[in-house]
């Protein structure tokens, strides 16, 4: 069967599965809609958290980023997994014991303040929209690459699917759909990874192949990579280019940010008991770790393959996959010195993304009209190719290509759905129910949540169709702001009985304002100054959330030390959430 037909079949089958699950698990009450009635088994919850967490970026782009940055890519590997340790030990069990529906609800109640709750809601909505915009774009891109439809049509199909199961099923529908999506994603990621590991090292387990010798030589994969890279003028793969302090701060910001992201935290509200909340974190990280330990191996294999087969090869003798992906626009070659041979080295070959003229040159290459840079390198490689082209590079059959398409869609859709749910919950529960219309009936609240989800999907879709130029820049925002706001406030709320309303609000404001201004300054006001010479202590905007978090802690403790201690019933509340006993079902209110 033709690959294209297979792709339609596999993607169609997975979509039918998601919709089937949504109909089977539709939500009838706000408790089902917000937290799946707190009845989700830890293993299912772990898988759902994994799917929710691993976005299109993790699935498609991460291995590519590591492939091109080597050691520097470790910040994502450690940062996006280490946060779960903090979650499991510092947040999840206590928030589950608290037993409500949302993060702003905890903030508002623990700090006996509607102001704190509203500040929290605004952060939740901002962080979640930032994230979801990228996901919808991801859906569109996967559609356009594999299903040969326009990106915008892809976004609209994606919106329709998410609308169906998020609006109908709420958290319950989303959770069980995500379990299915996790399975699709992992299968799609592991099959090509195992094949390419076998191909390069002869070892079927990528994590082990990563440290093995390249087949037919006595050199390890990493030695070979270092050798090949330095020959072409790159840094050693196992060495980084970022400063130690920057790597430290970025990793910390990603870890703490992960633990502070509302769509991740809310997962731990859905388990039946405190015990299960802890276990869920364990399963979630285990399921995430499978992909996160495979990704760096895939990165190294793909890089080895690229460096052995492309540089200093005549264009006419390049492997077949090169032409396929040149047609897709993910690789491009500009023959700067007119020798017909591909030169590859550090730097960009030309300014910006390739702009194809629509005609072919004397060797059959697609002519690129971009202005060349002074660098000698002639090759443009999109980082996404490291995952997308793997099945072809490894010579795998068409059904594997189809799997990758389904997996990429599963990754983007599952993350988008989780985020949209958090947005709709914040609007219906934290704004409407608690602030504007406290007497709203449960039925109306549920309707409001569904309408909010629908509106959020529309807005997210518009972001996907007309992507704001700043999407890539604002990812730093989501993690930085979560690190500088939610994490310190929640941790102090649990671990300190003395932390009061004034301290928490001061801390959030200081942390947010500082982080926000730093990122806005370097990313939007003076992007030309965005380099180590101007950064404070050499910390990039990606890592500044860590400093924001430290300032949050300092400001909160300072203000709390000379203002009134929290009232007695709050101190009892803290004592109560510290012990597991008595965590019942969702508290109705």
């Amino acid at each position, binding site marked *: 069967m033709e690959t294209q037909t297979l792709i339609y079949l596999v993607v169609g089958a997975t979509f039918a599965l998601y919709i089937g699950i949504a109909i089977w698990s539709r939500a009838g009450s706000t408790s089902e809609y917000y937290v799946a009635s707190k009845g989700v088994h830890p293993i299912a919850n772990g898988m759902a958290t994994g799917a929710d967490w691993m976005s299109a970026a993790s699935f498609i782009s991460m291995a590519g980023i590591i492939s091109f940055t080597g050691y520097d*890519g470790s910040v994502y590997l*450690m940062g996006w997994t280490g946060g779960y340790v*903090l979650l499991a030990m510092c947040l999840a069990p206590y928030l589950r014991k608290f037993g409500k529906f949302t993060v702003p609800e905890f903030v508002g109640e623990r700090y006996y303040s509607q102001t704190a709750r509203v500040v929290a809601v605004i952060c939740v909505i901002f962080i979640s929209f930032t994230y979801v915009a990228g996901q919808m774009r991801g859906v569109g891109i996967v559609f356009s690459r594999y299903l040969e439809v326009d990106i915008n049509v892809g976004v609209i199909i994606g919106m329709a699917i998410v609308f169906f199961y998020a609006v109908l099923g709420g958290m319950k529908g989303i959770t069980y759909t995500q379990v299915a999506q996790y399975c699709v994603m992992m299968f799609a990621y592991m099959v090509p990874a195992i094949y390419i590991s076998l191909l390069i090292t002869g070892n079927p387990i990528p994590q082990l192949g*990563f440290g093995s010798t390249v087949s037919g030589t006595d050199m390890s994969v*990493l030695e070979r990579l270092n050798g090949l890279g330095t020959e072409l003028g790159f840094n050693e793969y196992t060495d980084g280019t970022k400063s130690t302090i920057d790597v430290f701060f970025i990793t910390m910001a990603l870890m703490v940010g992960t633990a502070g992201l509302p769509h991740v935290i809310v997962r731990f509200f859905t388990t039946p008991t405190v015990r299960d909340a802890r276990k869920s974190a364990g399963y979630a990280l285990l399921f995430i770790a499978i992909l996160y330990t495979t990704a760096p191996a895939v990165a190294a294999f793909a890089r080895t393959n690229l460096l052995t087969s492309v540089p200093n090869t005549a264009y006419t003798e390049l492997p077949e996959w090169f032409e396929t992906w040149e047609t897709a626009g993910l690789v491009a070659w500009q023959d700067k010195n007119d020798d017909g041979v591909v030169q590859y080295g550090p730097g960009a070959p030309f300014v910006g993304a390739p702009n194809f003229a629509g005609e072919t040159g004397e060797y059959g290459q697609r002519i690129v009209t971009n202005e060349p840079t002074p660098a000698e390198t002639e090759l443009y490689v999109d980082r996404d190719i490291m995952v997308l082209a793997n099945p072809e590079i490894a010579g795998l059959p068409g059904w594997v290509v189809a799997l990758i398409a389904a997996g990429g869609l599963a990754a983007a859709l599952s993350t988008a759905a989780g985020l949209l749910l958090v947005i709709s919950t914040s609007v219906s529960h934290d704004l409407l129910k608690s602030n504007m219309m406290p007497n709203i009936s449960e039925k109306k609240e549920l309707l409001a949540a569904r309408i909010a989800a629908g509106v959020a999907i529309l807005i997210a879709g518009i972001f996907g169709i007309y992507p704001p130029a700043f999407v890539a820049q604002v990812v730093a925002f989501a993690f930085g702001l979560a690190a500088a706001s939610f994490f310190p406030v929640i941790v102090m709320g649990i671990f300190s009985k003395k932390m009061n309303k004034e301290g928490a609000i001061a801390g959030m404001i200081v942390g947010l304002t500082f982080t926000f201004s730093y990122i806005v300054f370097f990313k939007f006001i003076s992007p030309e100054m965005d380099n180590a010479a101007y950064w404070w202590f050499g910390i990039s905007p990606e890592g500044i959330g860590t400093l924001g978090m430290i300032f949050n802690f300092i400001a909160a403790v300072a203000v709390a030390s000379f203002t009134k201690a929290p009232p007695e019933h709050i101190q009892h509340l803290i004592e109560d959430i510290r012990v597991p006993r008595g965590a019942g079902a969702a508290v109705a209110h």
Partner: protein
Amino acid sequence: MSLSKEDAARGYWKENLRFMLILLVIWFAVSFGAGILFVDELDTIRFFGFPLGFWFAQQGSIYTFVALIWVYVWKMNRLDRKYDVHEE
């Protein structure tokens, strides 16, 4: 020995904090220590075909994180029972 409810809660919390601190020290040591601050020193050591620091940054720290959470789960379940604050 029967503890009053408050004493039990206090003892439970103290032991919980101490244990959490130990695990967080390990968490910090494998990632920020071995994977970042001392990566160059450790890279001089070979470990199953990897420079050791690089292995910690891209593999070892993640395995350790998973192990840490499961040790925490196991230990806390015992602690819950010891102080009789477990869920029925």
